[in-house]
Each structure stands twice: as structure tokens, then as C-alpha cells.
């Protein structure tokens, strides 16, 4: 039995309605924060912007604080309301998805740290010296869009969109692999580039992880709406759940 997106606002208890709305709103706010965190980290890396990188790094504290606050709020809802069925799935999904958002924030922080160390190194900015930076930018655009779409899918209880994100993740994995291959080629051609290339590899790795977390969020959206756990199963299963 799937859930309509406004279903959480029809309890007899108005207070319960507002608690759930609050939980959703806080989650989306945190999602917006980590989304821009990833964008800023990449911008800082690309433009050799020390200030922006530092700001992005510090932003992680705020994200961590929000994770704690949302978890606490979810605990309060569970204690006070003993949610069941779709309400329970909403609360549990938020608790799980918050962890994914926090991890996305961590990955953004890692990228920001690379941006800081690169800007402080003698070689200076990466700029677009390597095609792989362009490639990293491309992947970052892709995964940031995935995070945004995942949050959107959550806000609108849109399982079709969630399914699309799960499929997108496979593309990101392919892009990641091909970017790594081209970096290996660079390193073979010019051994002086090895340390920079390794940094970019770590950035790529972080971006790929961001895509995985967006995919996890999409899986929880499907669980929340349909009540069916699609994790760790072939994509066909999710397809059957979403389009029975």
C-alpha cells in the first residue's frame, strides 16, 4: 500500500502533523546545504579559491550539527507518537537518509581539503591543465544533480524519479572508471604529474561516493513510499516495485 505525498498531514493530532512536516523540512534544508557544499568544494578546486575551500570545510560543522538535531527530532517523534506504517517508514527513512547526507558533507569536506592543499602547493592551481579536471567537473555536475533530484523525489514522494537516480548511479560509476583510466595515462606520460593526479583521483573517488549516497537516498524514498526494501537487490526488483 503506497503513500501519497501529503498523507503525513492528515493526522487527527495537528501537533503530529507539524512534527512530521518539521522533520521533512529540516531534512530538505540539510540536503540543500550539502548539495551546495559539494558545488562550492568543486568550484574552489577549479578556481584555486582558498577562501571558498576554507568556508566549505568549516560548513561541515553546521551539517554535523543538523544531523544531530534531525536525529534527536526523529527520536522525539518515535517516543511521543509511536509512528506506524507510512509514518514509521517516513521517520526511519529520514534517520537513515540523514546519515547519507552527512557522508556527502564529509566527501565535500575532503574535496575542500584537497583544494586547500593544492592551492598551498608550489605547483598552484590545477585549472584545466588536465582533461581529468574537466572530467571531474562533469562528474561533479552529474552527482550534484543526482543529490538534488533525490531530495526532490523525497519531497514529492516521486518513486519514478528515485528509480531514475538509481540508474544514473550506474552511469556515474562508468564515468568514474573512465576518468581513472585517463589519469593513469597522464601519470605514465608525465611522472611529475603523479602527486596532482593522485589528488584528483581522491576527488573523483569522493564524487563517486556522493553518487552512491544519492542512490541510497533514492532507495529509501522507494521504501518510504512503497514499503518495499529495494536495497542490495538487482535494479529489476526496484523497477517491479515502482511500476508493478
Amino acid at each position, binding site marked *: *500500500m503506497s*503513500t501519497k505525498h501529503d*498523507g503525513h498531514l*492528515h*493526522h*487527527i*493530532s495537528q501537533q*503530529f502533523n507539524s512534527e512530521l512536516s518539521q522533520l521533512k523540512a529540516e531534512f530538505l534544508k540539510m540536503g540543500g546545504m550539502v548539495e551546495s557544499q559539494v558545488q562550492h568544494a568543486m568550484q574552489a578546486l577549479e578556481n584555486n579559491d582558498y577562501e571558498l575551500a576554507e568556508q566549505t570545510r568549516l560548513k561541515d560543522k553546521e551539517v554535523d550539527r543538523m544531523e544531530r538535531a534531525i536525529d534527536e527530532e526523529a527520536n522525539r517523534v518515535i517516543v511521543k*507518537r*509511536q*509512528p*506506524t*506504517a*507510512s*509514518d*514509521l*517508514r517516513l521517520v526511519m527513512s529520514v534517520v537513515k537518509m540523514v546519515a547519507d547526507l552527512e557522508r556527502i558533507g564529509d566527501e565535500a569536506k575532503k574535496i575542500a581539503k584537497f583544494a586547500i592543499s593544492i592551492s598551498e602547493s608550489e605547483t598552484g592551481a590545477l585549472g584545466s591543465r588536465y582533461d581529468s579536471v574537466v572530467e571531474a567537473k562533469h562528474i561533479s555536475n552529474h552527482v550534484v544533480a543526482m543529490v538534488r533530484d533525490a531530495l526532490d523525489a523525497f519531497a514529492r514522494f516521486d518513486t519514478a524519479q528515485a528509480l531514475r537516480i538509481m540508474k544514473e548511479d550506474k552511469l556515474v560509476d562508468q564515468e568514474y572508471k573512465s576518468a581513472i583510466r585517463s589519469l593513469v595515462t597522464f601519470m605514465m606520460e608525465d611522472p611529475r604529474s603523479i602527486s596532482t593526479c593522485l589528488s584528483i583521483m581522491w576527488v573523483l573517488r569522493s564524487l563517486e561516493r556522493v553518487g552512491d549516497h544519492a542512490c541510497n537516498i533514492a532507495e529509501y524514498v522507494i521504501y518510504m513510499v512503497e*514499503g*518495499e*526494501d529495494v536495497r542490495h*537487490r538487482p535494479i529489476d*526488483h526496484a523497477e517491479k516495485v515502482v511500476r508493478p
Partner: protein
Amino acid sequence: MTAMNQPKTTNEFAQKDARQTPREALDHWYLEPDAALRARVSNLKFWYGNGTQAIDDVSFPLVEKKVTALIGPSGCGKSTLLRCFNRMHDLYHGVKYSGSIELFPENENLIDLDPNVVRMRVGMVFQKPNPFPKSIYENVVAGLRIRGISKRSQLDEIAETSLTQAAIWDEVKDRLHQPALSLSGGQQQRLCIARALAVQPEILLLDEPTSALDPIATAKVEDLINDLDGKVTVLIVTHNMQQAARISHYAAYMYLGKLVEYNETSEMFTRPMCQRTEDYITGRFG
């Protein structure tokens, strides 16, 4: 629990139905593969003496040695349904039944049996503890004495097992001959459960057994019901949905005299099949 994500088809149940239960009885329900039926309610309708129809075409299985909960808003017919199981309505004039409550493996229709025989076979515990104004011991063995058992050693043995099963033995073993009314409310209720268990009922009916108890006594009674899972077939009416979620294995949601959903409790409280069930258990009802 059965694998949650496996589609449960009729055929799957039919294949795994290795017990003597009539095959068609299992066909419509989401039961665990090894579930055997103790009773089956089929198209049951019930009218009170004044012509009010309280139960309208209810069908559901009662799985052997499992706890089944009846939930639903006030006035939906849960208690009326429960009372059909021991024919308590027959105490009033002009009541009418249609449909059947079949008992297995005897294949007898409970509605056609003599109410006194039914009440010997089906035990009941009420909302408010109602011990007899006798000693604790005499309360437990009362049913046995009526059945003609008078051998002291046998009575002692059954009294001890029943009180132990009802998780009250340790509290009363040194005061078995004191008045039952000297016990606390929670202890009295557990004593009533022991009294019902002493005669080894085929089905134990519990009508909101904890609504008059404090949280600690409630927790003890709930623990006791949990212990009965796997030993006795229990049908319980409860207003407290969290309680139903905690102690029952199967749950039936009723509304306006009709059965809306029958399901495994864990399923019903995480992903109910019907919108009306969802609305009720999540508090959107009304």
C-alpha cells in the same frame, strides 16, 4: 517471520499446507507456511435482540497456538465478535447468528454447539479482574472442581503450572490460601488468566485485559501473553495499538462491524494492505 519481500501467493500456501487443515481454509489469508488453524470464522453475522446488526460478514482464521489481536475503533464490533466465541450473547434474549465459527480439527461449528459446552472449551478473561471471593488456590482450581477433579495432588500440580504459566507463581506461592481479593489489580488479572489456563482451554479470549491496569502490571500481563505465544491459541481485543503490535502474531482490523484487513501483525504495522487500516493505525482516522 516469512521473507517480507516474497510475494505470498495462494499457491505457495497451498503447497506448504502440510497439516490436516482444510486446504481452502488457508487460501485467502497471508499466513505463515507452517500455520495450522484452530478455528475459522466464515461469513459470520450477528444481530442483537433489538435487531441491531453488530457483525457483518466477517471471515478470518484463528491460527493455532498464536496470539491474534482484534483492533478497531470503539463500537466496531471487536468485543461482540470475541463474545461470539464463547456464546456469551446467548445470555440475552433474541440474539441471532448466521455463518459459522468452525473449530479444527473437530470440524464442529461453535454456533451449533451447546453454549455450556462451548464455555467449558473456550476460556475468557475480562477487562476488569474478577476473581471469586475465595482463596487464590480455590480460584485457580475452581474450573477443575466443576469438572469433577478432586484429587488433591492433581489440583496442586495444575494450580502450580497454571500460576507459573500466568507468571504469578513466585508472587503467590507462599500465600495460596489467602483471599484472592487481597492481591493487587495486576496480580488479580494474572490470577484470572491462570484460572482460565487451568482448564486448558482450546481458545483463550482476552477482552482488553490490561485496560484497567497500571503500566507495570500491563507490562507483566503483556509478557505473560508473549509467553503464551506458541502454547495457547489466544484471541485478544485491545484498544492499544502498540500493545497489539507488541504481543500479537496476527491482527484483524475491524470497522463498522466488518473486517477490513487480516494480516501478520508485523506487516500490518509496517505496510498495511488497506488505506483504511493505514489511516486507523497511523491516527488519521476520522
